[in-house]
């Protein structure tokens, strides 16, 4: 196990608990999809894992070490994070952005050396977007930005990559491309935790799901066990169907006609 979450609870100041007493773990090559309606705390859960928010109660262990006892750099060397959206105020070259992933291993008053730029280029190559290296970040498309952000996370050389709605703001083709990337990263041994609004993405990725139910209940289990027709309908509050499509040999989640 790389990440172990033990009895974690979280509440924003003066607000009721978002989630209470949840426990799960993420291992090498494991994909965990976090599902739940708007406002149930999916992003907060990811933020806790990334050490951006501090859980109200409970512990998070990385390789059996309590994150509370780790420095931010140490956490960053284990966990990469792809946030939802970034809008830089200045136009940086893609490579200059990706190399910031090397920050945990670079001293405060130092600058990236050629070897760090090599790591950044390798990460771009791994994502198949080396040709973007010298393009300006604010001149590339949304899909490319998502890939660049993943490359930045890879440059951190993490064991687990967290992605906050990696398919949001992307067209359909790019959504599928990003899902493929996640699958291949898992095949390479990275653990992946992603939040998504589309249960079908969880079905596509297989793996495990972590569900924050509006009732406050937390459900964790394999995709096949957890994603059931009645469960999805109660989770999202609308009628949903799970059908097996013989042509492509998989279960799909669809809404009935309106």
């Amino acid at each position, binding site marked *: 196990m790389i990440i172990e979450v033990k009895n974690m609870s979280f509440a924003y100041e003066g607000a009721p608990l978002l989630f209470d007493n949840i426990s799960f773990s993420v291992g090498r090559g494991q994909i965990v999809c976090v599902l739940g309606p708007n406002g149930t705390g999916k992003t907060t859960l990811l933020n806790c894992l*990334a*050490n*951006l928010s501090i859980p109200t109660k409970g512990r998070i262990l990385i390789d059996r070490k309590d994150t509370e006892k780790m*420095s*931010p*750099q*140490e*956490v*960053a*060397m284990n966990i*990469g*994070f792809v*946030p939802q959206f*970034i*809008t*830089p*105020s*200045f*136009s*940086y*070259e893609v490579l*200059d*952005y990706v190399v*910031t*992933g090397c*920050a*945990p291993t*670079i001293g*405060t*008053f*130092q*600058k*990236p050396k050629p070897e760090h730029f090599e790591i950044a280029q390798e990460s771009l190559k791994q994502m198949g977007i080396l040709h973007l290296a010298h393009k300006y970040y*604010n001149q590339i498309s949304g899909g490319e930005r998502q890939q660049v952000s993943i490359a930045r996370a890879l440059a*951190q050389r993490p064991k687990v990559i967290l992605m906050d709605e990696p398919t949001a703001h992307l067209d359909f083709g790019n959504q599928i491309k990003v899902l493929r990337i996640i699958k291949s990263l898992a095949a390479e041994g990275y653990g992946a935790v992603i939040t998504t609004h589309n249960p079908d993405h969880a079905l596509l990725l297989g793996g495990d799901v972590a569900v924050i139910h509006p009732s406050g209940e937390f459900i964790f289990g394999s995709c096949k066990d957890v994603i059931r027709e009645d469960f999805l309908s109660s989770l999202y509050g609308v009628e949903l169907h799970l059908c097996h499509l013989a042509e492509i040999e998989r279960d799909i989640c669809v809404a009935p006609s309106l």
Partner: protein
Amino acid sequence: MRKTIYIRTLFIMICILFIFAFFSICIGRFSSNPVDVYHAILGKLGLEPTADEGMEVVLFSIRIPRVFASMMIGAMLSLSGAVYQGVFRNPLVSPDILGVSAGASVGAASAIMIGLGIWERQGFAFLFGLLAVGLSTTISKLMRNHSNLMLVLSGIIVGGFLNSLLAIMKFVADEQTELATIVFWQMGSFAEIDMQEVVAIGPVLFLGSVLLIGLSWRINILSFGEVEAKIVGMNTKQIRGISIACASLLTASAVSICGTIGWIGLVIPHLARLAVGSDHVKMIPVSALLGAMFMLFVDTVARALLTVEIPLSILTGIIGAPCFAWLLYKQRATVS
């Protein structure tokens, strides 16, 4: 931009700056032949017998301190502008817009009224400058609006208030002594500068630029946003704190010598970005050099163009404002 090209650019800029400084030393009411100036400098260094005593006084007590001071102040204001823009992720801020200059002015004026010397004046200016930038950021936080515009508006509020405080201080200042000192200092002139003041701001410029150039890559990361910086394990509070303190110290030190000189801290970073790109590792040193060149140019024009000295703020405004308009036009697509 490739690293070799960048280093060549820096080298060329430093050469131009020195040539420029040399000619600026020659220009003035007591205009001197460059060859004579060259010999006088050699004479002062003890390499040649002194030729002209009168010229030596003009050069070494008046012009050379002034040329050094203008270059240093230009570098200080541009550096701090570049850092504020990066740290606040906001291309529209500058020491003036954030209210730092006004704060530093209030601090320096209080020091003058109490009758303190140049070092204490810098210290007071620094404290009040920090207070001003703290207020501006706090107000925009209280508004719970993190837009670029809100920070600019908060800065205008703080700057406006502090400028009124400064006006009150002038109002109550002793007409015979303090008022004149404050008014002369605040007009932003290098006319009265002496070597003692150059020596007083030297360490500040050195310390500030060393720290900020050291942190320049971290400022890149900060400029991507709070979350982006935290997820790569950065202590954002610490780095932001050091950067803002350095920038405010530079501004305060400049203000305590020659009052508020507008526009440089806003326009020069934009020019630098246009020249070498947004990467702060390259852009911060280039800002400092461009600022030094610009200030030297403006000050030379100010003392040589007419028989009377033109106040610096007039010239920086006349050049800076249209320049900023042109830069905004060029970047109109990327300003949000």
